[in-house]
Each structure stands twice: as C-alpha cells, then as structure tokens.
C-alpha cells in the first residue's frame, strides 16, 4: 500500500494551489459568484490551460488522467478556494459521460472541452425525482429520422451557460425503471429548449430546463438507446467522488480558519482556544474530517472495481462527507460567534458550500439507505 500521491498528481496539485492562491482570493471568488454569468471565462480558460480539465479525463480522449485519484486531487484543491467555475458539470459529469459512452464524433468534442472552449451540462434530475437516478419521465420518441424530446429537468448545474447539454430521457419502460433510459447530446440553443437560470445558495448557478418538441438527429444519442442507466450511475459516481473531495478541501479550510480564530480571538482575557470545551469540539471536527478523508480515498481507489464494490464505497463516502460537512459547517460558524454569520467574511461561504454539497447526488440519509441496500444485496 502507498497512500502518497504520484509525482504527476503532486505537481498538478501544487500548480493548481499556487494559481488559486494568486488569482482566486475570497473577494475575487465572491465577485465572480455574484456576477451575471456566475463564473469567470478568463479564469476558466486559465484553469483549462493549467490542465485541470484534462486531468479529469483519460488519455484515449486527449486527457492525461481520469482516474479516481486525479479527480480527487483536482477537486480537493478547488474546494479549498470554493471555486464556482463549472468544473463539476463540464469536466466531471458532461465530459465524463462523453468519454465513457460517446460516439467518435461526440468524443471529438472533448478537445474543445479540455481547452475550455466548450461548456457542458448534465440535465438528468427532474422535479419529482429527488435523488433517484431512475425516476425519469422526460420522454424521447423516435420519428422517422429524429428523436423528439419532451420534459422538464430540475436544478441543472450550469444549465444556463452550457453550450451543449446532455439530457436523459425515457425511451421505453415506465416510471422509475432503470431500463429504458437514453442519453442525448443537444445544443443548448436548440429549438424547443427553454432555460430559466438562477443563482444557487452556495455561489454557483443552475437552471430549470424545459424541453418542448425538441427534435434531434439519431447521432445525438449517446451510447445505446434504452441502456443509459449504467452510464448515468457511473457519471453520478464520479460526481459523488468529486464533491466529496471538494468538501474535504473546504472542510480543511473551515477548520483552519476556526482554529486560527480560536487562537487569536480573546474573550475573558484569554484566547478562546483556552476553553477546553472548544478544544474538544475542534478535535471532534478533526476526527470527522479524517473519517471523511479516509472514506473518500477508499472510494477513489475503488472507481474501477465492480459495481457493488464501487458504489458501496461511494455511498459510504457521501454519507460520511454529508455528516462531517454538516458538523464542520455548523460548528465552525458557532465557534466564530457573530462574525461567522457575515457575508463579508469567507467562512460562512465555505459553510454554505459544505451544506449544499449534501443536496447534490443524494444526501447523507439517501446514501445511508443505499449503502444498506447495496450491502444486503451483496
């Protein structure tokens, strides 16, 4: 066993870390998050140049990584700066699906994704589906030489700024059957697509997307019609790993900020850190973060294993991160007192991101149940 990062990954981590320190201070981040687009094109391009997107993808499609630990390395650094650029929807979800199941011409698009020119979104969840991956009612019907899509997609990350959108739709089966789902790659400005974008609580952007008689060619299908569920599950699996790693970075920063605060803020004539009750709570935070880190490492290492092994590890990680992120978010605000409640201060923004990660790809309870179900099945 070797728990050290490879040299390549360590170098990527270091250059990314330096870049974010120089160019992505908290004030810059908040300005970007509050802007109309919700991210900076300029910084996005620079991140792409640094190799951040390529690192998430395998060599066959022009990347230079794509393994669990690559995703983890990049996302953890991004979490340390609570980066709002659309890395998750474009590089992890969207590009991941194309690399995994795309046709040759669809895979060819990845070159532009890797260079930062093309933005993707993954429109899967629907208003009724909550965290279920198979509860899809959006319909796609085959006409002579087209597919026609109708339906609604909910809280699509980066949905309002993406150039191309991967949409899941039901082509057979009913309600929440896993079988019968198909993925399509559509242009964001295709006829019949309407998008209502909005900001999210944690500084990102998302959109409600309505598809009304959206006609696409047969070449828009990704992979085999009706057989998309495993592709979707793997994409979400990478998403889970990505946000777990992001949470680790954000938790570390929140913990460090709290520690520094306790060392410097004085009340009753002593630094707050002298109060043993607060010391113990800092220790609790550290313990939980270590648990979350271990679970995430385990999941990263199991990304290539069989489904049961991989998904069990992912659900374990997401459950642990959900619990520890809540603890860190709430405790670090509490231990900061009033200052932890202020918009101008960085900490609560970390806390908000940590909290909202629990609402992505299934919360702690969802993954607790899923873990139980998976381990009963095996």
């Amino acid at each position: 066993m070797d728990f050290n990062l490879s040299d390549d990954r360590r170098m990527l981590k270091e250059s990314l870390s330096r870049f974010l320190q120089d160019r992505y201070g908290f004030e810059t981040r908040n300005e970007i998050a509050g802007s109309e687009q919700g991210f900076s094109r300029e910084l996005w391009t620079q991140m792409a140049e640094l190799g951040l997107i390529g690192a998430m993808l395998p060599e066959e499609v022009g990347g230079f990584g794509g393994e669990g630990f690559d995703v983890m390395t990049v996302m953890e650094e991004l979490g340390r700066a609570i980066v709002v650029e659309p890395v998750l929807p474009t590089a992890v979800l969207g590009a991941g699906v194309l690399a995994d199941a795309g046709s040759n011409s669809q895979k060819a698009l990845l070159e532009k994704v890797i260079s930062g020119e093309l933005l993707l979104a993954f429109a899967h969840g629907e208003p009724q589906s909550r965290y279920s991956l198979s509860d899809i009612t959006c319909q796609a019907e085959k006409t002579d030489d087209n597919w026609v899509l109708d339906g609604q997609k909910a809280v699509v990350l980066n949905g309002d700024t993406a150039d191309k959108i991967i949409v899941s739709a039901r082509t057979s089966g009913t309600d929440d059957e896993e079988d019968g789902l198909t993925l399509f790659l559509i242009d964001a400005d295709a006829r019949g697509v309407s998008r209502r974008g909005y900001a999210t609580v944690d500084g990102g952007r998302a959109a409600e997307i309505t598809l009304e008689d959206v006609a696409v060619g047969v070449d828009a299908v990704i992979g085999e019609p009706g057989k998309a569920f495993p592709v979707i599950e793997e994409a979400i699996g990478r998403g889970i790993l990505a946000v777990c790693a992001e949470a680790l970075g954000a938790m570390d920063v929140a913990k460090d900020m709290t520690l520094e605060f306790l060392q410097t803020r004085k009340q009753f004539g002593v630094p707050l850190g002298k109060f043993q009750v607060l010391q113990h709570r800092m220790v609790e935070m550290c313990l939980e973060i270590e648990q979350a880190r271990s679970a995430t490492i385990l999941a990263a290492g199991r990304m290539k294993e069989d489904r049961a092994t991989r998904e069990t590890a992912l659900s374990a990680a997401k459950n642990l991160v959900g619990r520890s992120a809540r603890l860190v978010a709430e405790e670090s605000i509490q231990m900061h007192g009033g200052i932890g409640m202020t918009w101008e201060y960085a900490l609560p923004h970390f806390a908000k991101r940590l909290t909202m990660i629990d609402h992505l790809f299934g919360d702690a309870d969802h993954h607790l149940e899923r873990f139980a179900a998976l381990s009963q099945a095996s």
Partner: protein
Amino acid sequence: MDMNFTPEEIAFRDEVRGFLKDKLPEALAAKVKGGKRLLKADYELWHKRLNERGWLAWHWPVEQGGTGWTPIEKHIFEEECVAAGAPRVVPFGLNMLGPVLIKFGSDEQRAHYLPRILNGDDWWCQGYSEPGSGSDLASLKTKAVRDGDHYVVNGQKTWTTLGHFADWIFCLVRTDSDCKPQQGISFLLIDMKTPGITVRPIVTLDGEHEVNEVFFEDVRVPIGNLVGEENKGWTYAKYLLTYERTGIAGVAFAKSGLAHLKQVAAKQMKGRKPLAQDPLFASRVAQVEIDLMAMETFNLRTVSAAQHGGVPGVESSMLKIKGTEIRQEITDLLRRALGPYAAPFVPEGLDEGYNEPPIGPDYANPVASQYFNMRKVSIYGGSNEIQKNIVAKMMLGL
C-alpha cells in the same frame, strides 16, 4: 398535578383566536408563513393592531399600559399568534427596555418613553455587543464621559438588530475604568439622530440586512437619559437578558416550524411516495417532535412555577439551549426535505411584489436561507456555550 388549561385560560385562548381572526390581515399572515421579507411597516401595523386591543405589552403591568398577563396567558398568546402567522413583536422596546424602565427607570422616563413605545413613536434597538465584547460583555469599551449636563459617548456597537429602523438605542457604556469591569457600566438611552452616530449595515450569510454596526463619535447625550444609577448598568443589563433568553427558546416558533415541516414532508416526494411516509425521514421528524413535546412541558413547568411566585433563573438558560437546538434541527430537516430544490437562491422572491412562478415547490425559496439564518439563535442572547457555563455554575456549583 393538572396539566390542562383552566376554563378561564381556555376562554382566553378563544378570545385570542377571535382577535387574530378579525385583526391579523390575511396578506400579512401569508407573508409571514411564506417566509417573505417583512417591511418596517408590517411590524408597525401589527404593533398598532395589538396596541389598539391593549395587547402589545405583555411583560408590562396594567398600570403602565401592559396586559398584566400571567405567564400562562403570555404563553397562550404567543403560541396562538405564531400559529396564526402574526409577525413577531419586535422585542427591543417592548420586551427588553420596557421592563427595565418599569423596574429601574425614573418616573419621568416611564411617563415619557413607555407610551411612545406603545404608540410606535420610537423604534428601539439594543446596543450591548461590541467588536471586542461579545460573550465577555462586561469588557465593553464604548465610553461615556461626563461633561456638564451631558455624557460624551465614543465607541462602537455591533450586531445591532434592526438598528437601521431604529429611532433610539439603549446602550451599555463604560463610565468607570478603575474598577471591576461589571462595576463601571451604565445604561444610557441615546437618540439615533444625535450628531456623531453612524449606522452601517452588516449583510449576513443569507444575503439579508438585519444587523448593523453603530459608531459613536463625540455623541452628546443628556444626563437625564441615564437609566437608574451611574455604574449600576450591569444589574439592569442582566435583568433584561433573562427576558431576552426566555423569548429565544421559542416554543411557539418551534411548534409552528414543526407543523410546517410536516406539511412540506407530506408534499415532497421520495420514490413516488410522500417523504412523510419514508421511515428514515419520518423517524427524524418524530425524534424532534419528541424533544419538542418534552421541551414544551419543561417550558410550561417553568412558566407555571413563575406563575406561583418562582423566579425563572437557570431554567431560562436551559430552555434557551434546548429550544434553540430544536429550532435549528427543524430548519435543518426542512432544508433536507427539499432535496435538490434547497439550492436555488432567489432573494428577490422574498419580496412582496414578486410575481414570477417559484423555482421548484412554492415553499422552497426561503428554506435554505432560514436554515443558515437560524444559526444565530445559538449565538445571540448569550451563546449556548455561555448558557452551559451558567448552568454549570449556578445549578451544579462547578
């Protein structure tokens, strides 16, 4: 033991219900229940309605224009108001300063300020905390120096809730630095229009403007605005805090929050069934409901002891801790109930005139913001850690 309300208390409850039905505007109740942003005018309207009925000052004795209610009656009243969706009574003048003036103020002060509070002429805010003095309030530094028949005040207050609406601020100021910190504090009433006062907004993590910083630069305050005796302010301040604390426990808010949570869980779907029927979620809701039932009874035991002459002391700290934990848990479950729809952040949707269709379910928009905002209840009014220190000392003698 008799755990039921007396017939008189039930009659009182019905009277309150009748009043709310007649006098609480539906649009206002809908705003409160929908988690919309309240304007100053909304609070003022509700204060006015209550005052017309003589029900605005529940902590004041009848001779001062208060209701003279028993603790149980106050409890009933608050619970009914919250359940009906009434705005909260802004506590600073009515529930904080009022009782202090009644107990420690001069006759002139009572005659001048109390009617003005009732009539809504003066909106008050609370100037206790400072950047360097939060939990350790007694270390406060804002200084008041005697100069003829004025005090000259210099310093800064912070976290001043609704200070941007306020006409007056009651402040703790340092009038003596050569003694134990607690012994050199005075309680001053300051007109916010006095030259030298600057109010700056603090935006909180939910993007809202509710608290402020207040700066004092050579602010001249007539000596007649001193409450009680010079250097005795700490006693008055602590007296006020027990009123503040019991309010923060918020049994009524927790109950209406729980009812709302259950409604939401009945509407949210999980696996094509209402979330309310999901065993895991249902058990989380049940858990908090059990805690709340017990806490409500604890509150009634305390209230009823006060009715029979007992003084809530350490119980107010215990209630504050449990009550705030429960309120926070309820907002946490509400947030989790929404699933992905907790994420949209549409602050303009909290405005009255907003007419766009909601994103996701119509109850979703305020939920995440309220969860984050609710972090404050374990911080203010004396943080929960400080309450535990009080309990450890006063009850356990540790």
